């Protein structure tokens, strides 16, 4: 069986996989990192999004062997060692951007890539378009968009503290 060596959330990992093993199965089944979800079988829902070398990718549509030598970041790797949440996670909590939470790990990972790639800032419309690859069956997206808008202000250093949601 092929061996694959990579970094997951900063830690070196080596695992035996089959050629056909998907990255999401390596993460969930072998490494027990079950924060990355599988919501569809058609590469459309985005519940499985992780970062590979800084780019958001659907972990259900890439083979584990394809990430040999890469740096993979999952939802579990976002918070600081002392538990301080990433501004995007904090914003999702503050703005009530989740209900069942199934889509949330993928939403957060996609949103971070989207914000990082747009240092000039995103309009509401651009945030909505940027979430094309992530489906949410609960929230109606409205609070997700608000959370991303608030988080981008913190991530780009425009404000020190996350703007509070209206009561």
């Amino acid at each position, binding site marked *: 069986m*092929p061996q694959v060596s990579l970094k997951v959330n900063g830690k070196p990992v080596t695992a035996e996989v*089959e*050629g*056909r093993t*998907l990255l999401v199965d390596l993460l969930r089944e072998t490494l027990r990192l079950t924060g990355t979800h599988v919501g569809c*079988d*058609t*590469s*459309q829902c*985005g519940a499985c*999004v992780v970062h590979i070398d800084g*780019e*958001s*990718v*659907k972990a259900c*549509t*890439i*083979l584990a*062997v*394809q990430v*040999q030598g890469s740096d993979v970041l999952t939802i579990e790797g976002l918070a600081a060692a002392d538990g301080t949440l990433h501004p995007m996670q904090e914003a999702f909590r503050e703005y009530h951007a989740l209900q069942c939470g199934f889509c949330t790990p993928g939403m957060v990972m*996609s949103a971070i*890539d*989207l914000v990082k790639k747009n240092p000039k800032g995103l309009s509401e419309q651009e945030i909505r378009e*940027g979430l*094309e*690859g*992530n489906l949410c069956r609960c929230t109606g997206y409205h609070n997700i968009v608000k959370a991303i808008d608030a988080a981008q202000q913190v991530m780009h250093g425009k404000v020190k503290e996350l703007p509070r949601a209206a009561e």
Partner: protein
Amino acid sequence: MYEFTYHRPGSVADAVKLLADPDARAMSGGMTLIPTLKQRLARPTAVVDLSGIGELKGITVSGGTVKIGGMTTHATVASSADVAKAIPALAKLAAHIGDAQVRNRGTMGGSVANHDPAADYPGAVLALGATVHTNTRAIAADDFFNGMFSTALEPGEIVTAISFPVPEKAAYVKFPNPASRYAMVGVFVAKGPAGVRVAVTGAGANGVFRHAAMEAALAKNWSAAALDGVTTPVDDLNGDIHASKEYRAHLIGVMAKRAVAAAG
């Protein structure tokens, strides 16, 4: 997925050797191939990942031609300042393929080789009169696409690059399927070294096609109004749960007018 052996060659020559096995399949971004394998619609014994081949990547602009390596991702084309300057319509097309995650992995070579009837790039390749380069030859766009999911590629032949002559004017407008973002109808119009060309994707039962009546009308008078009354016969169009043949014929007219207006 059925089990297969995974290879990641470092050169086109090594990839060609591995693909000599008739049961081996090339993989670029895997955005079409992996979903196909997951559904067990294909059973290759070997998958040959082209992503380790440096010579398949990159964008060069010289002498009125934009040449894009087969392994270049949609995201790279969409964010390339060189492409945006030379052929803005192509950068814009790439920016609207699927979603950000698909664009981070999916490639031009994979899209063109696959010739999905609803894919966007085939419209650009045909309307701009591009040339598809492979490990053995150069194929003119007019000879490349020959039916739904079918091209002039021989088994084991690899798309290495595509070169696009820079047009004077060009634009692409699509009516996306609201769920997948694939084109229900997409029209690419161009005026340039290859003449006036109109390519329609998403609508044809045999994949992408040129619209001769629209080309004739626009060659006489490059304006949206010139397309008034130019219709599309429904016989060779695709009808499905998303849109009937008649609705697609109507959309071709609307998208074509918007494209000419956008091209200016």
